[in-house]
């Protein structure tokens, strides 16, 4: 088999970047991969190309374009940020609206660049030797690559990219999007802080729930110099926040955001829900549980009194909860019933449950079994706030038989006694 054609093709790709790879050497590598290792020729060409790209500290030429269609490499179009698509080389002009601490030594700078069409995260590789960009300044970035990382578009600045500071004095004010319309990437919202949750990690500054007229979304802010907690109940404009997706649920990371508090008020929609159905499953972890006593932690402990963060906690605090599925015959709803409601629903108080847990041979399991037998298979109406497809129940009632419903159904079924 002849490898010179493929070798020349590879060498031409690099010649455009001013490099002169050894064609004979490329040919030898290809031959070895194909003949000795049984690699498909197209795969061999790809792997030799990327090996050379690494050697010359260049991005892989032609990434995202069809194999053999090379030669176009480096052809970049000037684009608006909102139009850039993963797999493309782009040239764009924008303002650095946020800089964040690089996550790895191979990254020189990372942050968010915005223009009037939108915003995108960017990463400047340390190897690229690019000039440092300053927050608030405008730059023209030529021949960068847009790719996808964790499902989110990302602009990569590599050694083939040129960065020029430009003088622009436009002020950029992004238009906030309704929470319902957010999608992974960068987004801006105007929202109210409706809940503040206990920090679940020592590096976490604050987490909670934001809401607007269209819905609610979880937010998190990590500890970093200059970051301040949001005030519960206050309304904020949050520009250029990072929208992350995990298990199909979105959340906002506010560390990159420009946060402006305002005077307005928002009528936060929804969240409140009432569901009537049959309790079809009581999940493990229901009944009496032990919680971590460390202030602000409150995590459920394992049977060995082990907290995932604070380790063994012999001075735990008892609590009651029921995690289960409430089913209306069309849809099953995940419910989490809080202590006071568990007490009234099961007739077992925390003190009684504790007495059972400490004296019964089955211990905490006995509380689970007693509560299960009182609740499973029963028709219950639960009200509370719905968050992430889970109803946090703060009010619960066992459904009573209604002869009015009975009569209405008899009439609906029609017919007369025969």
């Amino acid at each position, binding site marked *: 088999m002849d490898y010179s054609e493929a070798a020349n093709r590879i060498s031409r790709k690099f010649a455009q970047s001013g490099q002169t790879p050894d064609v004979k050497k490329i040919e030898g590598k290809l031959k070895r991969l194909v003949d000795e290792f049984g690699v498909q020729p*197209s795969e061999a060409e*790809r792997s030799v190309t990327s090996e050379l790209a690494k050697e010359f500290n260049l991005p892989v030429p*032609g*990434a*995202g*374009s*069809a*194999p053999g269609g090379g030669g176009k490499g480096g052809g970049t179009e000037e684009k608006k940020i909102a139009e850039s698509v*993963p*797999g493309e080389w782009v040239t764009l002009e924008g303002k650095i609206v946020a800089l964040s601490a690089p996550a790895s030594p191979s990254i020189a700078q990372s942050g968010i660049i915005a223009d009037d069409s939108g915003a995108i995260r960017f990463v400047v590789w340390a190897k690229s030797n690019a000039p440092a960009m300053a927050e608030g300044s405008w730059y023209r970035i030529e021949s960068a690559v847009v790719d*996808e990382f964790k*499902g989110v578009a990302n602009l990569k600045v590599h050694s083939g990219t040129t960065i020029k500071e430009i003088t622009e004095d436009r002020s950029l004010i992004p238009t906030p999007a309704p929470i319902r319309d957010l999608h992974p990437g960068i987004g801006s919202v105007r929202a109210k802080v409706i809940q503040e949750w206990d920090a679940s990690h020592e590096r976490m500054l604050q987490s909670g729930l934001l809401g607007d007229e269209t819905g609610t979304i979880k937010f998190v802010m990590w500890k970093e110099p200059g970051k301040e907690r949001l005030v519960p109940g206050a309304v904020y404009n949050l520009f250029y926040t990072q929208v992350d997706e995990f*298990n*199909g*649920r979105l959340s906002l990371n506010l560390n990159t955001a420009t946060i402006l508090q305002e005077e307005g008020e928002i009528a936060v929609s929804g969240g409140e829900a009432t569901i009537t159905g*049959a309790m*079809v*499953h009581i999940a493990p972890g229901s009944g009496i549980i032990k919680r971590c006593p460390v202030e602000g932690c409150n995590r459920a402990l394992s049977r060995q009194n082990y907290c995932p963060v604070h380790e063994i906690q012999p001075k735990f605090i008892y609590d009651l909860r029921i995690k289960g*599925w409430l*089913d*209306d*015959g*069309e*849809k*099953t709803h*995940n419910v989490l019933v809080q202590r006071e409601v568990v007490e009234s629903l099961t007739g077992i108080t925390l003190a009684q449950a504790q007495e059972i847990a400490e004296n019964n041979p089955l211990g905490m399991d006995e509380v689970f079994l007693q509560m*299960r*037998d009182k609740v*499973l*298979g*029963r*028709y219950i109406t639960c009200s509370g706030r719905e968050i992430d*497809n889970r109803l946090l129940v703060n009010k619960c009632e066992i*459904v*009573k*038989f209604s*002869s009015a*419903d*009975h009569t209405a*159904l*008899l009439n*609906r*079924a*029609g*017919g007369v*006694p025969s």
Partner: protein
Amino acid sequence: MSTNAKDMPRREGAFEREPARRVFAAELRECRYQFKDGEDEKSPTFVLLPSGERSNRIFIVGTLTEKTRQGEQNIFYRGRVVDPTGTFFIMAGSYQPEAMQQLAKIETPAFVAVIGKPSLYQKPDGAWLVSVRVESITVVDKETRDLWVLDAAKHTLDRVDAYTKEPTPDILKAKEQYPTIDPSLFRKIAWDALAQIKM
């Protein structure tokens, strides 16, 4: 050539638990068609109700009239749960240890609430049997049983009404699989069941 080729397909949204359908024994026993939704080994199996709805799970409340322990090595329990329209055949084996223990403890007769998965079997003599593999079973009171009759009647009537309106793919499939069954029969059955509750 780009690395996108090996990108995993985006995971589907959060897990959705299959709802538990409400169905009277008289309708469930007419089922003759079950199917898998998807090619996967773990894809859920559905029994198609003659009124045109798929069910992977059902919720029933009735009277446990009989239970028998069977098997030597692999113990399992069978039971009969009676509603106003007929009998459900339930079973719990060693793959449902919690359900089996619950069932073993219950003294017959008793009102029970059963959550389980229906499946179809053909007996050696050619007769069909719809059996419910129990996920959990608890003793309940008569009021819960009465509430269930209302609930099952309501859902049965909803299905019968939907059957005559714009057909869903499942309704079309039911018409094809059960050509001799007229779902308006289930309207009468629902009425009979409701009439048995004393006012």
